[in-house]
C-alpha cells in the first residue's frame, strides 16, 4: 500500500474530473440537440468567418473612389455592385460589418461588466439599491433610440461615442436582471452560512452570488448584442453614429436611401447582413435560454 496518497482521496479526485467531463459532454449533446442554439451559433460563426476571411484576402479598399464606375449593378468584378462614388460595395459591407460588429461587441461587453457590478451591489446593499434603481428607472423611461441620439449628438458622431450611447441605454435592463436573480440567491441558506463563517462581502458577492446569476445574464448578453447592432445601424443611418467615409452597415444604408430609385443593391446587401446577424443572435439567445433554464424549456414544449 502506498503511504503518501490515500486511495479513497485519489478516487474522489478521479470521479470528480470524470463527472466534470461527463457534464460537459452532456451539455455539448444538449446544445447540438437544441435547434435554435445550433442555427443561431452557425449563423454567427458563418458571419464572423465571412467578415474576417474577406478582410484578410480582399484587395479592394472600402474607401477607394472610382468615379467612372458609379452605381454599377452587381457583377463578377464588383460582387455587390458599386456605390455613389464608385467604391466597391462588397468591400464596404465587409469593412462596415467589422465596424458594426466591433461597436456592438464592445458596447455589449462594457454593458455586461457595468451591469453586473451595479446589479450585484444594488442587491446587496439596501442603501445603494434605492439610489441605483431610481437612476435605472429614470434611464428606462427614455425611448432608447432617442436617448442614444441625444448622447451622440452631444458627444459628437464617433464610433467610441456610439459605444457610450448604447452602453448607457442598455445598462439599466442588464443591472435589473442581475439584481433580480441576485436578490433571490441572497436569501438562500448557504449565503447565510457564509456570513456566519465570516466571509467578506466581496467574497460572498463575487464568488458565491455572481456565479449563480449567470444563466439569465448570459441570455441577456446575447439580447444586448442584437439590439446594439440595431441601435448602431439606426444611429449611423440617421447620421449620428459612425461618420462617413468610414463604412458601417448603418451609414451604407444611409447612402443607399439617397439613391434608392436606381440602386437596390445599396440597401439590400447591408440589410441582409444586419438581419442575419440579429437573427443569429436572437436564435442563439433563445436556444441558450432553453438550455440554461429548465423552467422555460418545459413551458415551450
Amino acid at each position: 500500500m502506498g503511504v503518501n496518497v490515500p486511495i479513497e482521496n485519489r478516487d474522489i479526485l478521479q470521479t470528480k474530473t470524470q463527472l466534470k467531463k461527463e457534464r460537459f459532454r452532456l451539455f455539448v449533446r444538449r446544445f447540438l440537440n437544441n435547434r435554435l442554439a445550433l442555427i443561431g451559433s452557425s449563423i454567427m460563426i458563418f458571419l464572423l468567418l465571412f467578415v474576417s476571411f474577406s478582410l484578410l484576402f480582399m484587395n479592394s479598399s472600402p474607401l477607394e473612389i472610382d468615379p467612372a464606375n458609379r452605381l454599377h449593378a452587381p457583377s463578377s468584378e464588383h460582387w455587390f455592385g458599386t456605390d455613389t462614388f464608385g467604391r466597391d460595395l462588397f468591400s464596404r459591407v465587409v469593412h462596415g460589418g467589422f465596424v458594426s460588429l466591433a461597436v456592438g461587441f464592445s458596447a455589449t461587453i462594457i454593458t455586461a461588466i457595468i451591469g453586473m457590478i451595479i446589479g450585484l451591489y444594488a442587491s446587496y446593499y439596501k442603501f445603494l439599491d434605492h439610489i441605483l434603481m431610481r437612476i435605472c428607472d429614470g434611464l428606462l423611461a427614455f425611448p432608447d433610440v432617442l436617448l442614444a441620439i441625444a448622447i451622440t449628438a452631444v458627444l459628437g458622431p464617433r464610433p467610441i461615442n456610439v459605444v457610450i450611447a448604447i452602453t448607457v441605454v442598455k445598462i439599466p435592463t442588464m443591472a435589473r436582471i442581475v439584481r433580480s436573480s441576485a436578490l433571490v440567491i441572497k436569501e438562500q441558506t448557504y449565503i447565510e452560512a457564509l456570513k456566519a463563517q465570516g466571509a467578506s462581502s466581496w467574497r460572498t458577492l463575487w464568488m458565491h452570488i455572481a456565479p449563480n446569476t449567470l444563466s439569465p445574464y448570459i441570455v441577456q448578453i446575447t439580447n444586448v448584442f442584437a439590439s446594439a447592432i440595431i441601435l448602431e445601424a439606426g444611429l449611423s443611418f440617421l447620421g449620428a453614429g459612425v461618420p462617413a467615409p468610414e463604412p458601417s452597415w448603418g451609414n451604407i444604408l444611409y447612402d443607399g436611401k439617397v439613391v434608392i430609385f436606381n440602386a437596390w443593391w445599396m440597401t439590400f446587401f447591408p440589410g441582409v447582413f444586419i438581419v442575419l446577424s440579429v437573427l443569429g443572435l436572437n436564435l442563439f439567445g433563445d436556444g441558450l435560454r432553453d438550455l440554461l433554464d429548465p423552467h422555460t424549456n418545459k413551458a415551450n414544449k
Partner: protein
Amino acid sequence: MKGYFLTRILSLVPVLLIVSVFVFFLIHLTPGDPASVILGPQATPEEVEQLREQMGLNLPLYQQFFEWFTGILRGDLGWSISQNKSVINAFFEHLGPTLSLAVLAQGISIVLAIPMGIIAAKKRGTKIDQSVMVVAMLGLAIPSFLLGLLLMQLFGIKLQWLPVAGYEPLSSGLWEHLKHMIMPAMALGVIQTAVIVRMTRSSMLDVLSTNYIKTAYAKGLKERIIYYKHALRNASIAIITVLGETFGSLIAGAVVTETVFNLPGIGQLVMNSILRRDYEVIQGTILLAVVSYLAVNLVVDMLYGVIDPRVRMSRKG
C-alpha cells in the same frame, strides 16, 4: 383603488425628477458654447457675451437648472431659437405625424398579432405554429428603418402602388393621409407584431393548461367561446403589459422611421434641432416623449383593474 392610483402617480415624481436632471445635464455638459454656435464664427465676443447673458448661460449651473425646472412646472419648456417659437408649440406642431404613425402601427400590430398568436397556440407544434414563429423571429430581426427602405423599394418604386415618401395631413382627406402613412406604419408595426405574437402565444399556452379551462371543456363549452372569452381575457393581461412597455420603443422607432419617409414628425424635429444646435428643443422634446411614455404605462396599469377583477378586488383592501 383611488389610493393605489395616487401612490402610483406619486411614484412617478422621482422618475421625472431624475429624467429632467439627466436631460438637463446631458445637454449642458456639452463641450462648446451654444451661444457662439448659434451666432456663427463671424460673431464678435461682445455679441456672444450678450447672447450668453440673454440665454442665462452665465448663471451657475444649479441656478440654470432651477430656472429650467420651475419653468417646466409652469408648463414652459423654453424657446426654440431656430424656429422662433416656444418649444411646446414646436412639439405639438410635429406631434401629428408621429402620433398617427404610432397609432396606426400599434393598430396594425394588434390586428395581425393577436389572431396569429392565438392560432399558433391552438395549433401548437404543427407547421402553422412553426411558420408563425419563424415569421415572428424574422420580424424581430429587421430594424424598422430597414424594412421601411425595402417596402419603399417594392411598393413605391417597383410596383408604384403607394407614394414613395412625404406626408399629407389628415385634413387633406383620410385616404390621402393613409396612402402616405401605410408603408411607414407597416415598417414600424412589424416588430411590434412580432413581439405581441410571441407574447400572445406563450401566455395563451400558459392559460390553456390551467384547470378552469379544462372545466370549461368538461362542461361542454364551444371551443370558440373557451378561446376568445375565457382564455384570451386572462392572457390579455400579459399582452396589455407588453403593449404598454413597447410603446416607448414604438415612439423611438417612429423617430427613425419618420426620417426614412420624410414625415415631419418628432423625429425630424429632433434631428433638425441637433443640426442647428437648438438645445432647448432637444431637451424639451425628449422630456415630453418620456412623459408621454410614462403616461401610457400609467394608463396600462389602470387598465389591469378594468380587465382583471382580482386586481380590482385586491386593490380595494
